[in-house]
């Protein structure tokens, strides 16, 4: 459950990071279009919100929220480190596990 929350929030942060022009460009050498960015942003916030839910199942409300915030710190740290030092692994994870990665061809074609 806790791992699920961590993964969900990491996925969420990955989407949010990719909705930032600079990070997307650094990873894929081309700027994201605005449709992509909005889609990533939406998915990102959605995943972040969803990641609260497993925490509330495991813990009572107050402690659950505290734990959730702690997990957010951990997962955002992971994403930041991987963006700075492990771009290749980040790209791989993005293509394999993130909805934004799967949607990219779709969004780019329409553009």
């Amino acid at each position, binding site marked *: 459950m*806790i791992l699920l929350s961590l993964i969900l929030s990491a996925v969420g*942060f990955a989407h*949010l*990071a990719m909705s*930032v022009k*600079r*990070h997307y460009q650094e990873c894929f050498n081309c700027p994201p279009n605005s449709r992509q960015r909005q889609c990533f942003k939406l998915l990102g916030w959605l995943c972040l919100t969803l990641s609260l839910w497993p925490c509330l199942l495991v813990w*009572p409300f*107050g*402690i659950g929220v*505290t*734990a959730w*915030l*702690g*997990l*957010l*710190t*951990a997962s*955002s*740290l992971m*994403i*930041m*480190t991987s*963006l*700075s*030092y492990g771009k290749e692994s980040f790209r791989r994870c993005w293509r394999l596990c993130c909805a934004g990665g799967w949607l990219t061809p779709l969004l780019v074609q329409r553009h």
Partner: protein
Amino acid sequence: MKNGFRQSMAWLHTWSGLSMGWILFAVFLTGTLSFFRQEITLWMQPELHGSIASQQAADLAVQHLQRVAPSAESWRIDLPNAREPVINVSWREPGQTQGRRGGPRHILDATTGEQLFARDTRGGDFLYRFHFELYALPRNLARAIVGVATMFMLVGLISGIVTHKKIFTDFFTFRSKKSQRSWLDAHAATAVLALPFHIMITFSGLLLVASTLLFWNYEPRGPRGAPEAGSRIIQQVARETVPVPTLAPLLAQAQASWNQPVGRVVIDKPLTSAMTIQANSLLRQTLTLQSGGGPGGGTDVLRFDANGDMLKMREQRADGASNVQAVSNTFGTLHRGLFAGPLLRWLFFLSGILGCLMIATGLVLWCIKRARNQLGRVGFELVSALNIAAIAGLSCATAIYFWANRLIPAHLSQRADWEINSFFISWGLLALLAIWQRHKTGWIIQLSLAAVLFSTIPLLDLLNSEPGVWNRWVESNGIVPVFNGLCLLTGLAFAAAVQYLLRPQTKSVKARRSHVTPSTNSQPEVSP
């Protein structure tokens, strides 16, 4: 107008951070370590490392108490748990007031029930106390200093958020290898990623010391404890001896109903027919009930009578706290992490380390920004020296505190004081060294020292403990090896920082400096 506001906020951020940064770093570092206060104390008492938690612990404790304190008013048994593998028993003799420490105290082996004699040490408690009462200062003055520092921290946090231009765009940004830019990124990232924690810990910390700051509102604290206990007339009745029921099944029952282990057992009027047995859960299930203070505040409670039958529970858990109290309790509990299981504790620890890094990078950044123009000026040189003393010096002193624990003979009188003295003496010496060598060389010397001291702690522990430690580590729940491992990692992190400083520089950047605090998770300095 907006720009002006932001600029004044930046000014506020710079100076509120700088003026209290060194104290804040010390408070943050020792506070972060205090999340593992019990574990540190355990590491510092190798005599207790052989004890392994067992199901019969409570009954072993009762056997011991029957022998040493048959006529006590009450017994208190702190059962072994994942953080402390020994049994702590204490009792209150008739007529004795219930002080904070609650009378005599024995430590028992959790498998055999034998009494253990640990070396005299303040352990993690020293770091915990230092974190809000500093040391050797009058209690209220020290608390006031920490309180003011906390207030500055809050100001720094808020003004920092306002100053940060692009919180969302720069959320994940860390640009390495760009000197000042990298330091700024590291400072912002460590702050923003753990921002909820920073705000929570600062605000709740402020609430905890607030009573001292509002000195006009200050009520001197009398001796703690139940008021009626001291004045009660002692009645020494010839007591018939009623055996204590076997505790293991009762505790199993309690554990099943809470879904978490029993932390403490209190037996009131033991060995009499009026005996009540109260079991408290190990962790809190809620944030709003009172934190600190009375035994077992906020934990789940079950009571049993002399026959081992469950008594009706008191129904006063939900009420009893007004909204204001509930908020205050929430923050107190949050700050101390009293509800936290291992995972949450580690998350708090991680966030705390990020906080240390935030303060440290902020302090270093101040110097880097001014290195070109102000080199040689008194203020600049003073800040440089204090930075080294506060960041690298304190890290070394912490390592030396652990070293002293193993090197000072176990039976020396006042050895606990000597451990603390060695901490402060070494910190003082390192501060002097920092005044003498206050630029890059100073950082290299002190960080290398920290690297060596920390990474050799596992070796020290190994050489210092009895043979057969490996078997013991396999059986025990791993606190000692994890502690050693963390020390090694910390040492390696410092070594990486030294390597970063020693690398050949492309441009001659004078007065570029680096530092690192105990963490390997976020090493802005370490280039891949």
